[in-house]
């Protein structure tokens, strides 16, 4: 146990029990998994990616490269979870990963022995012999060895949600800078959001012993938090990571609502995605403690100096029984001394500088901490750290320590400043990159901006918080900044311990991806010198920590090798997310059946009651067919529905068609321009089938449009293209011809529409209309009537036919749709009226040779579909000019024809390609393909529609329908696409 005797922001009065690799431990509220493990003396927590080396906790934050665990079990298993950010809860279960059979003994650690082979880029040079071995042998082995944790085996049981927030000032980070900024902005009345990924506000102040405004740092945090909570215009969002900056001052953030609990509370999500729209943003994300590269720097026990101090001060946890610190800067030394004060047994401070500032030296002395100046750690030993070898100009010595805190200085956390393309700039005076161009509206405060003295940080935060508020229109009259005691901020730029040899073990740059200083040298040698090439060749910075702590050192090493200097070496690109984000939260509510809305038709419930089987058509759910008791397969039901319709009468809900109301004096003109055929000449009370092209001359959509009054038309579109056609019409009216006086309104939702088809349909209809004349004379083919049905329900009746039979479509306000269906069923009962679904609808239209979605592919022109003759030559219309291009008028083009299997018992399948009999099955011989097929109960065999080269000229010819993906290859006979009633007499009766 290395729990310190007292102190820390943990609740020692309560004990939480947790398990790691099956062993049970205890911790306290306020602990993270990492602090609790350390306090329990667990130092070996993970294995590295490539060499499977033993690894321990290195940081106390989300920048952690090593301490990755599988958290929770079963469907909630979360691989690669940083132990340093997991709040301890009672019953927590975690397991180490990337090891076999156990963390302590990992068979793949033999990789270390072959590490002379496994340098950067070794894959590219090998595994090529023999060629076939890659997928079969090498790759599977590599894949099994690689990866980190395991995904859960079952769907994520938790629920996620998304929300949008708006504010005047978003403050990211609640350290000294962020608190000061939020306070200054909040007091002005501006709407402020203060987000911090930590579960407590305060940032480094939670770990520091600094004095502010005469009190302690913790007092300051408590006071500011209390005031901010009291302000109604301020929203505090702990456990919220701002992960990305996007265009339009939008920030993406994840709030971990329930991750600190064993499972989400009822009705609570696990996490919530926030899109925060902020007029201004103050980024106060602090800085990372920069590592130093030295031999053996990856042993469990070697960690960031600030983390070592944080574990002692904030968590009351010692990272080892005793410790030393290897530093380059005053801040780390001060932090280490804070830790010693908190009770950590700190044996020595080893600093690369010739001397420490007087104040720190005196403090060390008072605490009994030995100071070794001009010192460098050159080697370490132990599976978990046992000793370090320190070299100074005066000689070298070995110290027995269990923990070593390392600090090479501060790397400002500027990730979010770069998401919109900003490039960091080098500041020689602090030997660090600081934000360059930042996203519009963003300002950077505190350590993230390279401001390191606490007094300056507080001033910085106050100033930027106030100006953010005043920029968004609030009066933030100068607020006095909190005052902090001065502390020394001296440092020396120092990135790695020079010298050759691997006596002390390899010197790691990127600990998770096992990238060593030698790998950087190899990349240099092989010409991968640009930082981006260095990254990609060695994988430096590509691990789950994205090189937050390691990148800087890696590029410093490369800069040294090229002699180009750090500024012109530059950094790799920072990308969102700042820390990895669960895919579940990015999807939110939209999974399972809620992935997309499910649109029921007005008769959905009725159809359900009839036992309909439904099918997704776009977002709609439509009845596919209505099985009857005793029917064993779908085809049986469909055949019955088709027959009933052809022989008597059938009904189907066609409400899913797009319906557009067009009013105004210029509707006719508009329609003439969007359809290839004429509509301005359409008589009132009549409907007409129309075809629309895109401007490139290919068919966009088809449908019928009826003229209800002189200046009033109603258009129908295909289900799939409803929104597209509406948008297209608005384009015509607003952009192309703004002078046209036409008003549009979508009425797709307003009207339920039911088609009644079949020889008896008139008789059925006659029974429900309120005095509308439905005789052939009163309402001829393509006639339209308005009136009422069912004793007073407003209705529009269109005499149309998609099935080829006598047919009508009856539209009523949607709430009456189900009642209309009911009424039709009752009225039709004597005639054996039969509801049919989209399957039968498909059969009916294929029998009739009508085109539908499978023919309107966006790749066909009107001529291909046999609709070319409809095109008016008397007017211009969209697509006319381009439809005249040579390739679109080429007689060689496939055109729509019908097909019958030569063997009438054979089944046709859509998607089969046509070949001349005897021709080799090659692309060159491809003559088109089958677009739609159906079993025709009317004809007693399968029929098909298809696009065949010069099809119209080849009636009676036999071609091969070649369908190798389904094992099909048969002869089919070319015929007219109108299989029944080619003259269209039935629909006119």
């Amino acid at each position, binding site marked *: 146990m290395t729990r310190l005797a007292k102190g820390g922001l943990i609740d020692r009065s309560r004990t939480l029990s947790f398990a790691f690799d099956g062993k049970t431990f205890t911790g306290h509220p306020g602990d993270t998994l990492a602090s609790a493990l350390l306090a329990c003396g667990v130092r070996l927590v993970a294995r590295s990616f490539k060499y499977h080396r033993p690894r321990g906790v290195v940081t106390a934050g989300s920048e952690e490269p090593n301490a990755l665990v599988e958290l929770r079990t079963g469907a909630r298993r979360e691989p690669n979870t940083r132990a340093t950010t997991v709040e301890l809860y009672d019953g927590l279960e975690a397991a180490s990963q990337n090891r076999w059979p156990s963390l302590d003994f990992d068979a793949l650690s033999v990789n270390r022995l072959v590490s002379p082979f496994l340098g950067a880029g070794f894959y590219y040079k090998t595994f090529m012999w023999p060629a076939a071995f890659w997928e079969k042998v090498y790759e599977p082995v590599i894949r099994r060895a690689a990866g980190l944790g395991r995904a859960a085996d079952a769907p994520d049981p938790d*629920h996620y*949600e*998304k*929300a*949008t*927030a*708006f504010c005047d000032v978003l403050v990211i980070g609640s350290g000294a800078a962020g608190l000061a900024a939020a306070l200054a902005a909040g007091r002005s009345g501006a*709407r402020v959001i203060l987000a911090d990924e930590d579960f407590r506000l305060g940032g480094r102040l939670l770990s520091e012993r600094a004095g502010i405004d005469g009190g302690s740092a913790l007092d300051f945090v408590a006071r500011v938090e209390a005031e901010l909570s009291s302000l109604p215009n301020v929203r505090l969002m702990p456990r919220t990571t701002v992960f990305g900056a996007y265009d339009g001052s939008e920030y993406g953030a994840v709030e971990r609502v329930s991750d600190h609990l064993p499972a989400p509370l*009822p*009705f*609570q999500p696990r996490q919530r995605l926030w*899109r925060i*729209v902020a007029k201004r943003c103050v980024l106060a994300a602090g800085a990372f403690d920069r590592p130093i590269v030295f031999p053996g720097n990856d042993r469990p026990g070697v960690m960031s100096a600030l983390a070592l101090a944080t574990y002692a001060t904030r968590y009351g946890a010692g990272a080892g029984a005793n410790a030393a610190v290897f530093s380059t800067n005053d801040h780390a030394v001060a932090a280490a001394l804070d830790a010693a004060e908190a009770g950590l047994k700190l044996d020595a401070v080893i600093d690369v500088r010739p001397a420490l500032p007087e104040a720190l030296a005196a403090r060390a002395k008072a605490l009994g901490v030995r100071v070794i100046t001009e010192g460098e750690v050159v080697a370490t030993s132990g599976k978990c750290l046992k000793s370090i070898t320190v070299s100074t100009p005066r000689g070298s010595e070995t110290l027995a320590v269990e923990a070593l805190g390392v600090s090479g200085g501060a790397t400002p956390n500027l990730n979010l400043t770069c998401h919109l393309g900003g490039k960091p700039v080098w500041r020689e005076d602090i030997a660090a990159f600081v934000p360059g161009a930042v996203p519009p509206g963003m300002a950077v405060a505190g350590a993230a901006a390279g401001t390191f003295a606490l007094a300056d940080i507080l001033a910085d935060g106050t100033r930027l918080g106030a100006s953010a508020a005043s920029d968004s229109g609030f009066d933030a009259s100068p607020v006095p900044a909190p005052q902090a005691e001065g502390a020394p901020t001296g440092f020396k730029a120092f990135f790695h311990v020079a010298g050759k040899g691997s006596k002390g073990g390899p010197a790691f740059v990127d600990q998770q991806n096992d990238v060593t200083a030698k790998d950087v040298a190899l990349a240099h040698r092989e010409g991968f010198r640009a930082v981006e090439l260095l990254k990609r060749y060695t994988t430096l910075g590509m691990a789950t920590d994205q090189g937050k702590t390691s990148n800087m050192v890696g590029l410093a090493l490369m800069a040294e090798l090229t002699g180009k200097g750090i500024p012109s070496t530059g950094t790799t690109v920072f990308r969102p997310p700042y820390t990895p984000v669960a895919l579940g939260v990015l999807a939110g*509510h*939209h*999974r*399972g*059946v*809620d992935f*997309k*809305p*499910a*649109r*029921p*038709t*007005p008769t*959905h*419930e009725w159809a359900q009651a009839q036992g309909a089987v439904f099918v997704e058509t776009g977002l*709609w*759910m439509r009845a596919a067919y209505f099985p009857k008791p005793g029917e064993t397969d779908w085809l049986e039901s469909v055949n019955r529905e088709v027959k009933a319709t052809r022989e008597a009468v059938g009904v189907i809900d066609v409400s899913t068609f797009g319906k557009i*109301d067009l*009013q*105004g004096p210029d509707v006719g003109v508009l329609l003439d321009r969007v359809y290839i055929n004429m509509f301005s000449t359409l008589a009132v009370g009549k409907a007409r089938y129309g075809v629309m092209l895109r401007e490139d001359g290919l068919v966009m959509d088809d449908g019928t449009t009826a003229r209800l009054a002189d200046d009033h038309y109603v258009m129908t579109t295909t289900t799939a293209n409803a929104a597209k056609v509406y948008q297209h019409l608005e384009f015509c009216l607003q952009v192309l011809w703004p*002078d*046209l*006086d*036409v*008003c*549009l*309104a979508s*009425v797709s*939702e*307003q*009207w*339920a529409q039911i088609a009644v088809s079949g020889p008896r349909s008139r008789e059925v209809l006659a029974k429900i209309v309120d005095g509308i004349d439905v005789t052939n004379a009163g309402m001829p083919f393509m006639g339209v009537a308005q009136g009422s049905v069912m004793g007073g329900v*407003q209705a529009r009746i269109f005499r149309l036919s998609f099935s080829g039979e006598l047919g009508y479509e009856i539209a009523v*306000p*949607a*709430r*009456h749709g189900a009642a209309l269906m009911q009424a039709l069923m009752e009225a039709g009962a004597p005639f054996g009226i039969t509801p049919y679904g989209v399957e039968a609808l498909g059969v009916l239209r294929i029998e009739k040779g009508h085109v539908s979605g499978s023919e309107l592919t966006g790749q066909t022109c009107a001529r291909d579909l046999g609709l070319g003759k409809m095109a008016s030559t008397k007017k211009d219309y969209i697509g006319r000019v381009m439809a005249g291009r040579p390739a679109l008028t080429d007689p060689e083009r496939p055109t729509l024809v019908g097909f019958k299997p030569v063997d009438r018992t054979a089944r046709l399948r859509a998607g089969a390609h046509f070949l001349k009999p005897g021709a080799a099955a090659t692309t060159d011989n491809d003559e088109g393909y089958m677009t739609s097929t159906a079993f025709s109960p009317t004809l007693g065999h399968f029929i098909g529609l298809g696009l065949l080269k010069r099809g119209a000229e080849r009636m009676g010819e036999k071609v091969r329908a070649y369908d190798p993906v389904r094992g099909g290859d048969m002869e089919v006979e070319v015929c007219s696409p109108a299989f029944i009633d080619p003259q269209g007499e039935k629909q006119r009766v």
Partner: protein
Amino acid sequence: MSDLLEYLAPTRLVPEGHYGPEGAAGVTARAVETLAAATLVARKGATARLIVACAAAGLPLADAPRFSAGAGLEAVGTGPGRWLVLAEGVSGTDLVARLAGMASGLAAITDQSDANLIVDVSGEKARAALAKGVTVDLDPTAFRAGDAATTNVSHVGVTFWQKDAATFRFAVGRSFAPAFLRWLTVSAAAFGFALTGTGRG
């Protein structure tokens, strides 16, 4: 997905009831079936005259995403020169006729009484729940009584407006209403959610 509605077919309206922790409801929603509605679209160049004509007939209109009421009608701006007009207790045909009288020759009027489900959302936590899908700023300083918006909520197109200090009224396409209510129920359940007007499901 939430277990809350796992049992329910996605095409069904969420049945009325109390969802979430027991106790007072932080969010209430009520489906309103008694409204007639119509779109009122100004003819080319006639917006200003239409506004004058309607004002004269007692219905103030703003050519903006605003809600206004008068002469027993409620109007909501949904686009330049476009409004959705609602009226309680009349038929769609009557409403169309009334509007035609007010706007003769100045507008296209289209009955939409059956096009939408109207849902009134209120309660102390209404804003917090709505923020989980509405991507328009609903803060009282930004969205006030009388403001309206046509937007997407959780993949569903809606027009909504703040009718008064307490109530947000949503017009949701009829076929999208089940999806909208599923989202609303799941989003509001944490606050306690009382839903009425949708029947027993």
